[in-house]
């Protein structure tokens, strides 16, 4: 074959590969053909002083609605008679492995409304998923004081990720973001088939080779820092910071007139099984902690979460313990900490009972006291149902 024809073949191959990828994403996910969103990180933007979801952004199977929330279209103002629950957290809550509509906030909404219908209850529920990958508590706090508050939630469900507290630096409010966070036009022309190729190449590697690559990444990260940089035991200052942030979270949720529900953070190791390769996959994201430290920190953080809830009189759902008790870690977690659809269903079920108990309790209190539930008193009275 002549060189020119080889070149034409290559050109056609690459163009069709890219075009088909775009058409496929358009048909399957509704991604615009010229989308500028090229990664899950592009789903976030810095707006009104906080990190928020980029409205209507879509990356592969993950899509945000017009308010920048993961889930179906909704309005900023709650519908009359509907109890609005907002879930906040990081990638576990956002839902990485689950198919669209199967992440735990969506399953929670379905489960609550089905239960309400069965019991002929007048309550109807709407669950808004305001989580985003990589959201630590300080970032969530900014959101709570801003765009999440404007959603007028009745209940805020918090699924904190303690692992952020053994990261290179302690979690802090975002400071390194550009005020103008728009995505440039040139991004629309970048190849979208590349992530598919990278994923396919990874899938070809044997598990042992992938593990070696992760180990190498971890070592490279460690070498950038002086000896003693790694956490080989639980860093107490970080744990104290987690406790402090969590208490601040409870106070902030109450200050916007909502009831908080805390959840303990689960992971695939809590049932006692130990998969070294899986542990390394987790450490790769937090190379400052050894695998033992990372796992131990999550366990201790669970105890802190329970304590904070007890001290603050807040409903707590011990997801970590429940999932560990089931002994089905392989089925409930898609990796070290993210849920499978089955895991998400289990979390939703656990939460459903707590939410219903909270709603029943507050309804009873309202009936007895004849007063509107206003946890902190600072929230503007809502004209539209909810827990009030």
């Amino acid at each position, binding site marked *: 074959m002549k060189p020119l024809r080889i070149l034409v073949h290559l050109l056609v*191959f690459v163009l069709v590969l890219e075009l*088909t990828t775009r058409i496929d994403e358009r048909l*399957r996910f509704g991604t615009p053909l010229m989308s500028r969103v090229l990664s899950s990180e592009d789903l976030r933007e810095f707006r009104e002083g906080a990190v928020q979801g980029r409205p209507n952004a879509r990356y592969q199977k993950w899509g945000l609605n017009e308010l920048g929330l993961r889930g179906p279209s909704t309005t900023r103002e709650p519908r009359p008679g509907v109890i609005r629950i907002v879930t906040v957290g990081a990638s576990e809550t956002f839902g990485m492995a689950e198919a669209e509509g199967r992440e735990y906030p969506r399953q929670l909404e379905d489960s609550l409304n089905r239960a309400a219908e069965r019991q002929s209850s007048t309550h109807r529920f709407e669950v808004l998923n305001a989580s985003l990958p990589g959201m630590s508590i300080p970032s969530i706090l900014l959101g709570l004081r801003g765009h999440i508050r404007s959603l007028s939630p009745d209940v805020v469900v918090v699924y904190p990720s303690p692992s952020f507290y053994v990261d290179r630096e302690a979690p802090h409010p975002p400071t390194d973001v550009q005020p103008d966070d728009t995505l440039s036009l040139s991004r629309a022309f970048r190849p979208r088939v590349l992530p598919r190729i990278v994923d396919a190449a990874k899938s070809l590697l044997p598990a042992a080779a992938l593990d070696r690559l992760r180990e190498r990444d971890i070592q490279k990260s460690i070498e950038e820092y002086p000896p003693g940089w790694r956490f080989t035991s639980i860093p107490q200052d970080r744990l104290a910071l987690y406790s402090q942030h969590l208490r601040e979270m409870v106070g902030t949720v109450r200050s916007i007139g909502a009831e908080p529900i805390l959840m303990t953070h689960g992971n695939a190791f809590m049932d006692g099984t130990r998969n070294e390769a899986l542990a390394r996959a987790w450490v790769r994201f937090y190379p400052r902690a050894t695998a033992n430290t990372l796992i131990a920190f999550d366990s201790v953080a669970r105890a802190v979460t329970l304590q904070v809830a007890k001290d603050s009189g807040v409903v707590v759902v011990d997801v970590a313990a429940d999932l560990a008790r089931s002994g089905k870690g392989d089925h409930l977690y898609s990796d070290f900490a993210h849920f499978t659809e089955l895991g998400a269903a289990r979390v939703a079920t656990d939460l459903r009972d707590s939410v219903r108990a909270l709603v029943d309790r507050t309804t009873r209190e309202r009936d007895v006291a004849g007063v509107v539930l206003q946890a902190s008193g600072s929230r503007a009275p809502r004209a539209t149902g909810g827990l009030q």
Partner: protein
Amino acid sequence: MLFNSVVFLFAFLPVTYAVFWMLRSTQARYIWLAVTGYVFYAYWDARFCLLMLFSTLVSYFAGVALLRWDTDARRRKLCMVIPIVVDLSLLGFFKYTNFLLDTVADVSRAFGGDPPVRHLNVILPIGISFYTFHTISYIVDSYRRVIKPTRNFFEFAAYVSLFSQLVAGPIVRFRQIEADLENIGTTSRTQWIPIGIRFFVIGLVEKVIVADSLAAFVDPALASYHTLSTAATWLAMLGYSFQLYFDFSGYSTMAVGLGYLFGLRIPQNFNSPYKALDPSDFWKRWHISLSTVMRDYLYIPLGGNREGEAKTYRNLMITMLLGGLWHGASWNFVIWGGYHGVLLLTYRRFASSWDRLPAIVRQLAMFLFAVVGWVFFRATTMTMAMAMLGRMFVPVAGQLEPAAALALPLVLVAALWAMVGPNAFEMPLERQWKSRLALTASFAASLALILGSRPSPFLYFQF
């Protein structure tokens, strides 16, 4: 391992191909094909390699014994019966045990009794229906002296475990590739590359672009079949009819292409079945390798059409009922087979009148008959089949799947290709660079879809 998976396309196939052509001797190539067949199979479940090996060994030694006792009729018969009994016992145990137990349990319950034995936890080894038929056809043909059994174990093992046809056919008889296997050491690599690649890419397009795109609409629609309107049920079933055809035909066409890449000419398995003008024509075009195996090893031994009309009808019905049962251990498949048996009998009875109808009318009518039959094939229970038929034939309101707007043009394109357009064997083999460019583009489009999703299994894997 699936032909439409990254690991097959970029690891298994290149390595298998490169090593195969690096090896020079016939024996080395037999061994390599046999080994890669087992690796291909082990990727699904290594345990069942032993089952395939056992079946291979039994038939191989029976073949050698047939050579040894060439003039001893009694022993020759034994050499045929033993491997057939072994193979059918394995197939029966793994595929039909639970079907039998469930049927006994249903009958017991119907008479108010308790089921004597509960459901057993038996895993159906993938492809067992296909490689069992490979070994049975080999031993029967050897017994009938149609072929001379091979003394070379690896030649036979390569034939049984040939990865291109191992798990979903076509059911290639030894006699069909015997000559190519004999010449495998001297075959030309470059001679078959263009045709092999062409068939493989066309099959990939059929599977990945057409069948899987249809599945995206058909599967969710049929999952909620009880909510569909009459129009939506028809649309879903039309979609399924084309999905099934392009899925299985795609697999078979890829198998043909892969065969060519290794110097083996695997026969055509689909010849545009939706162009069939009558039931008899349909079965000469759909899953040709199974139809001919059923004809040669069941229908004709039963007497075929040589013993009068009544026995011909009986033989046809037995063949079609067992053909249905071969597809799956469920009464739905038996009914599907029976339905086609009735179509064949009816056609046989009224052929002279039917054949006078215009061709287009016969083609459309035969297609609709096939679509109705697919209801039994697709439904997981009899209740589902009856409910779907009810929705198809008694107008009922319901939802039209949200994806229906997208599905309709896709179904139309699929219909045009399947009912009017050429199949892979009818497309001219042009060596002009524009044709090659079209193949390059087709491969790129298929690859983009493969990279973007988990490979979907072929529908016929379940059989």
